[in-house]
């Protein structure tokens, strides 16, 4: 039963995958004028232009271009960088680890912060703790993440000198250095998510704390914390799973900004650099890998949701 359900969900992912690859491929179609000329600049020789056109397959009909590109992509061949000649898939996957470490750290931070604020705020509605949590929930979704990053760098790196302003140490190299280098970027990346989780968890906690089973739990003689932990949170957490799935894509996108601010050599920075260098195969590679990651995460949260929610039946 469960496998059938998985299969059906998986079948839903395939058309999504086709459309997303089509979108990624189409990026090269919307370059105004002659893409080869746009990518190489005005000084390009006729030879170079012709070479690039055949390298990108621009001399063929669009549908065949897409088919070829997709076929190569399925084999893990995303072409070569126009700028450095590097193999795109190598470049992308060498940076993938850094970005994943950063995003997972941001996700963990936003959950910790979100849960902290949500729980403290429902302990005493309309108390100062509640107001702090609501203020944070409002501010976190509106503050530009790069500005937050600049403010924190100004305080913790420039003024106090506690944390590095730039750079990244992988967790596999040096876990202490990792913690130091990841704290600021992960916080800035996760602030939006933390605020979202605060808002959502707060409202769903408020709702579930008002329900009959909570009253029953209290009347059984349970005290506050076990009630919140076992009964309140467990039910209030369901919608948060969906939010977390959406947040993942959001954070992955935001690495574009955060990695640039903190000079972290991940996929986000690669995306920005490849645009500045008009390195189109590289840009397509980064976008494709990121969106495939989002599709995988969406699939996982979907399945996770149905496992966690006993009301959903698999057939």
């Amino acid at each position, binding site marked *: 039963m469960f496998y059938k359900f998985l299969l059906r969900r998986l079948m839903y992912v395939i*058309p*999504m995958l086709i*459309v*997303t690859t089509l*979108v*990624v491929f189409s*990026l*090269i179609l*919307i*370059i*105004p004028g002659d893409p080869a000329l*746009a990518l190489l600049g005005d000084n390009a020789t006729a030879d170079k232009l012709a070479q690039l056109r055949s390298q990108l397959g621009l001399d063929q009909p669009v549908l065949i271009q897409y088919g070829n590109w997709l076929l190569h992509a399925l084999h893990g061949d995303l072409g070569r960088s126009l700028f450095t000649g590097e193999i795109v898939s190598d470049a992308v996957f060498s940076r993938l680890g850094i970005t994943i470490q950063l995003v997972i750290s941001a996700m963990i931070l936003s959950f910790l912060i979100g849960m902290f604020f949500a729980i403290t705020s429902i302990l005493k509605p309309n108390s100062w703790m509640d107001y702090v949590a609501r203020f944070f929930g*409002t*501010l976190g*979704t*509106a*503050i*530009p*993440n*790069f*500005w937050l990053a*600049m*403010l924190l*760098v*100004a305080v913790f790196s*420039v*003024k106090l000198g506690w944390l590095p*302003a730039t750079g990244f140490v992988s967790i596999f190299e040096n876990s202490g250095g990792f913690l130091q280098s990841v704290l600021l970027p992960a916080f800035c990346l996760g602030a939006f998510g933390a605020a979202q989780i605060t808002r959502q968890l707060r409202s769903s906690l408020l709702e579930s704390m008002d329900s009959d089973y909570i009253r029953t739990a209290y009347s059984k003689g349970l005290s506050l914390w076990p009630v919140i932990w076992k009964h309140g949170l467990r039910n209030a957490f369901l919608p948060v799973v969906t939010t977390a799935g959406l947040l993942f*894509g*959001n954070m*992955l*996108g*935001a690495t*574009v*900004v955060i990695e*640039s*601010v903190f000079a972290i050599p991940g996929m986000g920075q690669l*995306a*920005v650099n*490849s*645009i*500045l260098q*008009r390195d*189109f195969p590289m*840009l*397509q590679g*980064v*976008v494709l890998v*990121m*969106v495939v990651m*989002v*599709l995988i995460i*969406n699939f996982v949260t979907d399945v996770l949701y149905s496992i966690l929610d006993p009301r959903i039946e698999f057939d």
Partner: protein
Amino acid sequence: MQFRIILQRVKRERLAFVSLIYLVILVLVAVFARYIVPFDPEAQDLNQVMIAPNGLHWFGTDELGRDIFTRLLLGSQAALQAGLIAILIPLFIGVPLGILSGYLGGIVDDLFMRVVDAILSFPAILLALGITGALGVNLWNAMIAIGIIFTPQFARLARGQTLQVRREPYVEAAKISGAGPLWIMYRHILPNIASPIIVQASFSFSLAILVEASLSFLGMGAQSPQISWGGMLHQAYSMIFVNPFMMIFPGAAILLSVLAGNFFGDGLRIAVDPKIKRT
């Protein structure tokens, strides 16, 4: 619902009303910026570099001695344009497509929703970046890109709302009286699904300001000498070890504008919801 009634209801939401006033002032500033700025935005005064706020330079000066207050006022133009375009593109493309898809239903609707879902699974800022990169890096293309990435959301919203109203008696009545499908969509469906779309537009407006600032910060939006808050922050970031105060005002301007858009959206949502009655 009538505009006057909605305005009255927004007035009752204090935060939303204050935000509305802020946004109106922002629009006025952007429109008349050229006439009200105290200095020439490009005038450099190398004797007055990175000075702190004072009576003459209200928000201080940048690393070339240019007046930050002046540049901040002019930067509102880029932000507002981005917000406006980011709403207009989805309103004129996404909403009609969404209504059409919901009204027609069937396989067209299925296919269309698959496409919308697929585009929505892209991290928004990444797609905006990709589109800007393809079209060519400048503010105008960045704004178009933002408009494009917001379009699927509006299409999905309009489609969902259309599904809810397309079996209503007034639509059936119009059909029986011989109205064509285009007329029905325009005259009977659109007005009845407008409220949630307007609310969504208000949130998209503030999100667009945020995305435009991010793109300009990355150098993918406004190009010098064009002034934008994101670009000012980029410039301030290169001076962070010398003078961290330069970043305060442009960032605060972005934050306030985004907050105002969000609060106004919250108030509007309450104001246009006929189910919420206040006495």
